């Protein structure tokens, strides 16, 4: 994921087109995208694909296709507008939407950036936990241990975890407020090294799989068989996860940076490009960060799953309380893989025991294995791996907090940037203490794209179509309005429609309870990973219709 859409000098030419002398060459964009899309969050996203039960074909082909669609979106949608207007998204939006609506957009953007930075702090904190354990830190004579969050945890699970997150968050925040340039420099220096450490994660995990499965690799076909049968086996997802198919992977890879390409945030970047075809430079970020890095991180977690076996407690529970496993061989279960089916059955039995009063809710012990970037990286590449997790989280959380701070500061221009950044960092740190964001990062990233996507449709329609339809483009600038209701309503109504489609069954049931049967009961809605595609077309058409009505009304 890209966290900081800012090349050097992005804060220049905020309210004027970028002049010819300031344009950048193709290589600048290749390097920038390669570095920025190899972030701490990749270490979380890759494993979450595995948790979603993805198969080798679906993952690899889905990522190839989805990343290609993302590159095409940057090249064909974002870059052509950027190289013709050469304005930042914010200024472009201000001309279309008016200052007040842009303020609202800034608020939404800032909040999303905060949560994203929170997830990065969570990722780094998992590495702090491993480091503390290995240093052998003690407190009152007892070794300090930081209990890690679990896959389906929403809330912080211990004081030690909160302390670890705050230690990391405070460090990131203070540096973002006072030493942004220093970390930007560290990020530039670390980028090539980080990319290779990500690659090393995958290479080491591959060897570990070869050893663990006693496989001989003599041809690409052997490698593919290993990938299909042991690494990305497909099948059921872990409990609490949505099953990922080819389409999920494709759409996720395409839309995880939706705010940047279809949502037009990267107008701010590509206004510096000499030609619109420089959009293809984003392939460096997509195929390094969102292909290689995701696959490497996924392999680390797949290996953890491969090496995890059911413990005595689970096996006893299955043999004693499950009709399905009553006849099963105890030793085979103990030495076999911990499959999602076994975990699900164990969880079902525990729930039954709780219901019958034989087990306390707090004594439940069975849950899916958790992808924790810190321990995963340490297991594969030792201290350097741990360092990579901390650096990747830190260098990307830092500019994200800085950017969120800038977005908030636009709303409160009288408060100093340092104060706003400190407050923003605190908010991100609080968010980081809640593992729900990192553990549900697939969903959050899809939500992030969905929230900002309608404004991208507004910018595109305004640029290409409004004048051809006899309407005024840049309407706020022309009419002097501070809130273009056509754009505002497009945003709100598109979001409302998307939310209804995602939460369709709940909305349908709620309305049916009220005696309102307007929604068909035989439709299941659309998952959040897919809803932004119809949402974008809906927003585009809606903006044209509303502009027609709004511009006619205001001109009267």
């Amino acid at each position, binding site marked *: 994921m890209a966290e900081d859409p800012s090349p050097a000098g992005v804060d220049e030419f905020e309210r004027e087109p970028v002049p010819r002398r300031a344009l950048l060459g193709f290589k600048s964009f290749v390097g920038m995208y390669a570095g920025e899309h190899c972030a701490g969050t990749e270490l979380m996203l890759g494993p979450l694909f595995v948790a979603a039960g993805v198969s080798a074909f679906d993952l690899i082909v889905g990522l190839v296709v989805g990343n290609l669609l993302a590159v095409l979106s940057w090249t064909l949608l974002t870059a052509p507008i950027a190289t013709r207007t050469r304005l930042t998204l914010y200024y472009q939006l201000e001309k279309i939407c008016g200052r007040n609506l842009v303020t609202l957009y800034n608020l939404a953007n800032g909040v999303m950036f905060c949560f994203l930075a929170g997830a990065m702090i969570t990722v780094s904190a998992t590495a702090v936990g491993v480091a503390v354990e290995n240093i052998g830190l003690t407190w009152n004579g007892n070794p300090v241990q930081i209990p890690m969050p679990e896959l389906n945890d929403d809330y912080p699970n211990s004081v030690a975890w909160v302390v670890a997150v705050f230690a990391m968050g405070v460090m990131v925040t203070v540096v973002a407020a006072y030493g942004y340039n220093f970390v930007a420099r560290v990020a530039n220096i670390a980028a090539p*090294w980080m990319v*290779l450490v990500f690659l*090393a994660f995958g*290479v*080491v995990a591959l060897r570990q799989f070869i050893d663990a499965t006693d496989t001989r690799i003599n041809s690409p076909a052997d490698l593919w068989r290993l990938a299909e049968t042991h690494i990305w086996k497909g099948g059921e997802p872990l409990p609490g996860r949505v099953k990922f198919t080819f389409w999920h992977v494709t759409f996720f890879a395409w839309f995880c940076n939706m705010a940047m390409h279809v949502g037009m945030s990267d107008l701010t970047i590509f206004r510096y490009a000499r030609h619109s075809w420089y959009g293809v430079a984003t392939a460096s970020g997509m195929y390094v960060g969102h292909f290689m890095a995701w696959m490497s991180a996924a392999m680390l977690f797949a290996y953890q799953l491969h090496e995890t076996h059911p413990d005595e407690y689970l096996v006893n529970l299955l043999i004693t309380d499950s009709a399905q496993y009553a006849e099963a061989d105890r030793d085979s279960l103990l030495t076999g893989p911990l499959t999602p089916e076994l975990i699900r059955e164990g969880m079902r039995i525990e729930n039954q025991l709780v219901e019958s009063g034989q087990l306390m809710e707090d004594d439940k012990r069975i849950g899916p294995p958790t992808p924790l970037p810190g321990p995963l990286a340490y297991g594969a590449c*030792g*201290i*350097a*791996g741990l360092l990579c997790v901390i650096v990747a989280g830190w260098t990307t959380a830092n500019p994200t907090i800085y950017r969120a701070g800038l977005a908030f500061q636009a709303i409160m221009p009288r408060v100093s940037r340092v104060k706003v950044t400190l407050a923003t960092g605190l908010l991100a740190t609080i968010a980081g203490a809640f593992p729900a964001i990192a553990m549900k990062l697939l969903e959050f990233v899809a939500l992030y794209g969905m929230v900002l996507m309608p404004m991208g449709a507004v910018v595109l329609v305004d640029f290409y179509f409004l004048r051809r339809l006899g309407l005024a483009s840049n309407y706020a600038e022309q009419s002097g309005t501070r809130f273009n209701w056509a754009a505002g309503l497009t945003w709100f109504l598109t979001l409302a429609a998307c939310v209804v489609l995602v939460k369709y069954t709940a909305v349908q049931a709620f309305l049916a309870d009220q005696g309102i049967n307007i929604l068909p009961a035989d439709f299941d809605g659309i998952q959040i990973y897919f809803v932004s595609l119809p949402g974008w077309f809906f927003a585009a058409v809606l903006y044209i219709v509303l502009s027609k009505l709004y511009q006619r009304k205001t001109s009267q």
Partner: protein
Amino acid sequence: MTRIILQLLSWLALAGTILPSVLYLAGRIELDPSNWLLLAATIVWFIVTPLWMGRPKVEDELVI
């Protein structure tokens, strides 16, 4: 000249970042030594690279 030497060291450090894992994949070394080599390469990269990356080339000319 100094700059070229530093850059060369950085490139070697980058090679040292990926090479140990490739050797481990090939079955030439164990994981532990591979990780120590990776750590050594990491230290060299972070010490040497800031000495030239992002700095103007003028320094070299002054030395000459």
